């Protein structure tokens, strides 16, 4: 068996997320590909948090319906997850606070004897896990050295006590491949934006993209990048446009509620043709919904946000590599076509952790449009064949650069003339057509699995990971539109050539991808929805697909 799942649980404040990361890195060192799902309620201390770390020989992006190990720092970790356990599941638990069968370690006593704070209980139980799983001490020590910048010596001491207190119950094999970076979806997006040429990142904190703000702030400590957190999302969007006006490639990040506040600015971006990239991390709605849980229910919001008609790019990457690639492309495209770009992601992708193969050099570079020539005759909104005008930024010698949210003429001066209004609407339409042409050259639709199969799964965004595995297990074709606006209709139709039964898998209740495709004449036969804030697990989705096909 080369597929392991480990659940570690405790209360908020126990460091469950970082403990999950250490476990992921243990497997990473052993040559496994890893994925981590982190489940936590919206509170700071207390409650019940857990992470499921999955490790496999193959690339993975989903969690399973069973776990091999439960690492319990609280009683809930044992009681709440019984459905994931079988007779084979090994429980490793803190005997000073948890009742269970398996390997007990007295955390309270060990921490007291070592003079360690309670938060180091997670290091101790990881030590016990390593022993139980037959992972050598040297591997654990190396991972601690790399991943724990603070209080390393004490953490190692405590882990060693856990290691010595446990017994080996299996021996997880070392695999061949060398370790890969393990990064979150948020980090993959941030790296993609950096690759695309990002100059500034502006955001107001909101789950699930707050960690992207933190990540960019961390980068800005050493890199020449402006990171700013203003008073609200309205200011975020307008600051981004101010930065864009003076030539700074800018992205913003938020979730649905914050994006509501950004929409007047988004529409201004459409009208003033100032580029901006929006990272829209979906979570369970409507309204506040469940802030720390996932959803795919903002697709139509992203497609239609903002008054008036204007072209936009909406891309929904499905894994960390796509997140990196398409974040770079979203920034480049936004800049070359002077349109807003939306990166539509969700809690599962943003806060999930993945083994990551840097797509770096394989990411296409979008061809640059002419910049326009400076001088008294400069027209910021000059009419061209493609609708794309040469964009200059102040200060430029002897050049007046006017941008405007009102209907304007080619110089950027307000007009209410009927003929000019039509002309400028058609200019934006032409830009949309040029954008669609560009998108069609970028493999905007993923096709995987049994590509010739009649039975086809359709998905978008973070369900890619689980659909990939289900498609592979059941020999289905898998089609994933990565760009949703402008919808690459021909590429979708080509990918569906010969497919007879289309099953759309979505984490919403309306079937938003199916609705979008129906508008383009593509009719989905069956729909599988989940809308409780939790992502599909592998066996669960497999069973639901079988039900549909039965």
């Amino acid at each position, binding site marked *: 068996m080369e597929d392991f799942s480990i659940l570690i649980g405790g209360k908020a404040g126990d460091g469950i997320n970082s403990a999950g990361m250490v476990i992921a890195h243990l497997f990473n060192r052993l040559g496994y590909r890893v994925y981590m799902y982190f489940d936590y309620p919206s509170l700071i201390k207390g409650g019940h948090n857990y992470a499921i770390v999955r490790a496999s020989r193959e690339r993975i992006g989903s969690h399973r319906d069973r776990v091999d190990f439960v690492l319990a720092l609280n009683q809930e970790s044992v009681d709440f997850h019984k459905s994931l356990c079988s007779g084979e599941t090994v429980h490793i638990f803190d005997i000073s606070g948890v009742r269970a069968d398996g390997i007990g370690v007295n955390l309270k006593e060990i921490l007291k004897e070592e003079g360690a704070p309670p938060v180091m209980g997670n290091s101790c139980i990881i030590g016990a896990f390593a022993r139980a799983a037959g992972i050598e001490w040297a591997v654990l020590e190396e991972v601690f050295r790399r991943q724990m910048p603070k209080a390393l010596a004490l953490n190692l001491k405590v882990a060693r006590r856990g290691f010595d207190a446990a017994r080996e119950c299996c021996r997880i094999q070392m695999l061949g491949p060398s370790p890969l970076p393990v990064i979150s979806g948020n980090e993959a997006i941030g790296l993609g934006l950096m690759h695309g040429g990002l100059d500034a990142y502006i955001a107001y904190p909101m789950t699930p993209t707050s960690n992207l703000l933190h990540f960019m702030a961390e980068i800005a400590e050493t890199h020449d990048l402006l990171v700013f957190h203003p008073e609200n999302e309205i200011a975020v969007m307008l600051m981004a446009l101010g930065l864009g006006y003076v030539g700074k490639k800018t992205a913003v990040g938020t979730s649905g509620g914050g994006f509501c506040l950004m929409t007047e600015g988004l529409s201004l971006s459409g009208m003033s043709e100032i580029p901006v990239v929006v990272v829209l991390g979906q979570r369970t709605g409507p309204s506040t919904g469940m802030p720390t849980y996932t959803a795919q229910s903002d697709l139509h919001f992203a497609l239609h946000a903002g008054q008036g008609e204007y072209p936009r790019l909406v891309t929904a990457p499905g894994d960390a590599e796509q997140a990196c690639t398409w974040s770079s492309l979203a920034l480049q495209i936004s800049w070359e076509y002077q349109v807003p770009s939306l990166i539509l992601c969700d809690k599962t992708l943003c806060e999930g952790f993945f083994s990551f193969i840097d797509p770096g050099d394989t990411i296409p570079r979008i061809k640059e449009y002419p910049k326009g020539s400076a001088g008294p005759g400069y027209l910021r909104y000059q009419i061209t064949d493609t609708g794309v005008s040469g964009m200059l930024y102040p200060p430029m010698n002897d050049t007046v650069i006017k941008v405007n*949210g009102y209907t304007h003429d080619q110089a950027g001066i307000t007009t209410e003339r009927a003929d000019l209004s039509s002309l400028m609407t058609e200019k934006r339409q032409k830009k949309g057509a040029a954008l669609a042409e560009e998108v069609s050259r970028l493999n905007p639709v993923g096709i995987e699995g049994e590509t010739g199969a009649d039975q086809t799964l359709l998905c978008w965004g973070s369900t890619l990971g689980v659909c990939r595995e289900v498609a592979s297990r059941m020999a289905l074709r898998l089609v994933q539109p990565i760009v949703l606006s402008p919808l690459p209709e021909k590429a979708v139709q080509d990918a569906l050539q010969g497919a007879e039964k289309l099953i759309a898998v979505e984490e919403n209740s309306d079937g938003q991808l199916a609705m979008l495709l129906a508008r383009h004449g593509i009719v989905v036969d069956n729909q599988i929805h989940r809308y409780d804030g939790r992502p599909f697990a592998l066996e669960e989705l497999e069973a639901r697909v079988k039900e549909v096909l039965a």
Partner: protein
Amino acid sequence: MTARNLVTEAQNTWCPGCGNFVIQFALKNAIQALEKEGVELDRIVLVTGIGCHAKMADYLNINSFYSIHGRTLPVATAIKMANPDLVVLVCAGDGDCYAEGLDHLIFAAKRNTDITLIVHNNRVYGLTTGQYTPTSPLGFKGRSTPGGTVEEPFNPLEIMLASGATYVARGCTRRMDLLQKAILDGIHHPGFAFIDVLQVCASYFNLSDYYDARVYEIKDHDEGDFEAACRKAREFDYNEDAPIGLGTLYRTTRPTLEERLASVRGTEKDRSATIRKVLEKRA
């Protein structure tokens, strides 16, 4: 650099007698004065909101960002953050800046970003045909309040003093000489400069005679004394009859947003190196 006509060919649509003409003249004169001091016109950027005031973006032949209602200051702040060499001027209305965008106003003062804000405070919504604003007097009969408003106005100068503005002044379109001086002083001020301009709206709230009878030039006043500035600001509360002082109420200096940002910015320019470094840390 060829001599540039500072006024565009756009047709001017302000009402006859509008106070905006006076502000436009004062601003144009201030810009010409800057040019004489050696500031290239290409380095000046004007940001406007939405309302009668905002047409300034169309009428002045300088770089401009014609933004949306209430949203001048985040745009202007960002432009200055991105390029501190630019001279950033903001024209906003009272509905624009005191109602729809009040949050941004308070934060611009708090941050002390080095921009100059001119509020065209006509104490009425003009373009939407005559409704009350945050500075209309109690009982103002507008089209949304035919029986008179039921709330007192607030005093924008007090708000700005409380929020940390480092330059606070008042002008009036009935005294262009003092207005022009306040604008130029504001532009020269290194930090957030706030100028509330009592502007006559010829169509919906013509206070020409009212202002003529009450405005006076502030003299013998210690601009560096915060308490004295507060007292001066409270003299006229935008509601009850009182003398209305014109000129600088408060002036001080503290580090600007741009200066503080520069001191915490990283310096690495090589994107690939930064990406590589992150990935090494996470392996």
